[in-house]
């Protein structure tokens, strides 16, 4: 028995994985995969891979066979998307749903000097094939009104105007408010502890960075109405006036 029960922290995260969509006949598709691996050594090494079976009609035995063949090529499948529930057994990778597409992954061209290397050889990872997504900024030229919710998971949000009481701004990156922040501001929601919140006038109902939050009551009264920046230090939210 635990004498001091401590809550377990659970957080939702989203990650970028490569989705492989095998085609029939599987052997032909595997041959093309080998060709790709030959051109870009270590392409699938240590990468989270999801198998997309939406357009593939195969049985469980064939699926096990496919997974084994992929494993032999050092392709580790972390989840299966688009498969019938009956196809998946407890010892198979778990089903994934609601995947969102991003830009197609560019495959690095074969280096001219590089001789074909066996896919299994643990070559040091070359240039990262998964290109970092451009951190698009969102700039809003009008106030955020009560009841409105501004959600931008990809990067920073800048509001030229105020954020009203009863509204919320959620950003994957930092939040900049060139006006009064009266509603809720949640920065770094995709697990970015370095995100910050800046505002001209702090009247916020709630502020949060990377899942750690403070309500208006917990904010230092002396900072209300001031131009401030808010950041995360360890697990503590820090607020300081911008002089």
């Amino acid at each position, binding site marked *: 028995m635990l004498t001091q029960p401590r809550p377990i922290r659970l957080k939702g995260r989203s990650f970028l994985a490569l989705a492989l969509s095998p085609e029939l006949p599987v052997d032909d598709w595997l041959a093309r995969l080998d060709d790709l691996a030959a051109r870009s050594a270590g392409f699938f090494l240590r990468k989270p891979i999801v198998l997309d079976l939406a357009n593939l009609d195969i049985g469980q035995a064939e699926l096990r066979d496919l997974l084994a063949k992929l494993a032999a090529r050092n392709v580790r499948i972390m989840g299966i998307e688009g498969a019938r529930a009956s196809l998946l057994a407890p010892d198979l990778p778990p089903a994934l749903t609601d995947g969102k597409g991003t830009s197609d992954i560019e495959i690095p061209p074969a280096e001219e000097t590089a001789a074909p290397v066996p896919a299994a050889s643990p070559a040091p990872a070359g240039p990262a094939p998964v290109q970092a997504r451009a951190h698009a900024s969102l700039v809003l030229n009008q106030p955020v*009104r*009560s009841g409105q919710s501004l959600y931008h998971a990809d990067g920073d949000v800048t509001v030229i105007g105020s954020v009203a009481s*009863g509204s919320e701004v959620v950003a994957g990156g930092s939040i900049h408010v060139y006006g009064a922040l009266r509603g809720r501001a949640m920065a770094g929601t995709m697990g970015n502890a370095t995100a910050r919140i800046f505002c001209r006038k702090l009247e916020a109902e709630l502020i949060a960075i990377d899942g750690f939050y403070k309500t208006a009551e917990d904010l230092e009264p002396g900072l209300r109405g001031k131009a401030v920046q808010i950041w995360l230090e360890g697990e503590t939210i820090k607020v300081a006036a911008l002089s």
Partner: protein
Amino acid sequence: MGKVIVVTSGKGGVGKTTSTAALGAALAQTGAKVVVVDFDVGLRNLDLVMGAERRVVYDLVNVIQGEAKLTQALIRDKRVETLFLLPASQTRDKDNLTPEGVERVITALKKAFDWVICDSPAGIERGATLAMRHADVAIVVTNPEVSSVRDSDRIIGLLDSKTLKAENGETMEKHLLLTRYDSARADRGDMLKVDDVLEILSIPLLGIIPESMDVLRASNVGSPVTLADGRSAPAIAYFEAARRLNGEALPVVVPGDKRGLFGKIFGRRAA
């Protein structure tokens, strides 16, 4: 083609109906053809404030459902002959308002009148969104207190997203009408000051209507305040707001500033 105005607020009891009647009567007294439309189906009040409750035969819902012609439902005011009322139904509810029906009625009214003033119900549901849907101009009625201001802010957000103008990528012209303003209470800090409200809502000010017994008195005798006593403080404020709606650049005087000036003169004499 006439202009369609929606008088809206989100919160109830802030003075939408009073303002609709007062502005309608003020505009009509300049000779313009004005119709005030009650969208508060099920809780109609505009007929009372206009003093026409005994003359209602057909209403907005009858017209929308094809049970009556528009001309049969329109009630001409007995005091100003260019002022008309299209009453709401008291026995039906807001589900009887259809988007197509409302569009048909508003289009017909726009052809016949210079101003179509729609009195929106409180809330943000069907009645309110249909009342604002076809508007060219919105008048956001707000009391100087926090809950009214926040509700108005919500409504401004809807005006910028749920109206035809917004959906066509145009911006809705929005005006703030600050009602029930009591300068003494604002000075004491019991009420929000004009600047505070303007700072939060950041839309242009159409007028400030002082808190006054004249408004209640006019409502009780079934008369828009701009018809009951044209020289009362709220009536003057509504007349000025109507002139601003007509495009006149008239400076807004904060009630109480006048008294401040008077106080200064008085003070000088005493010294």
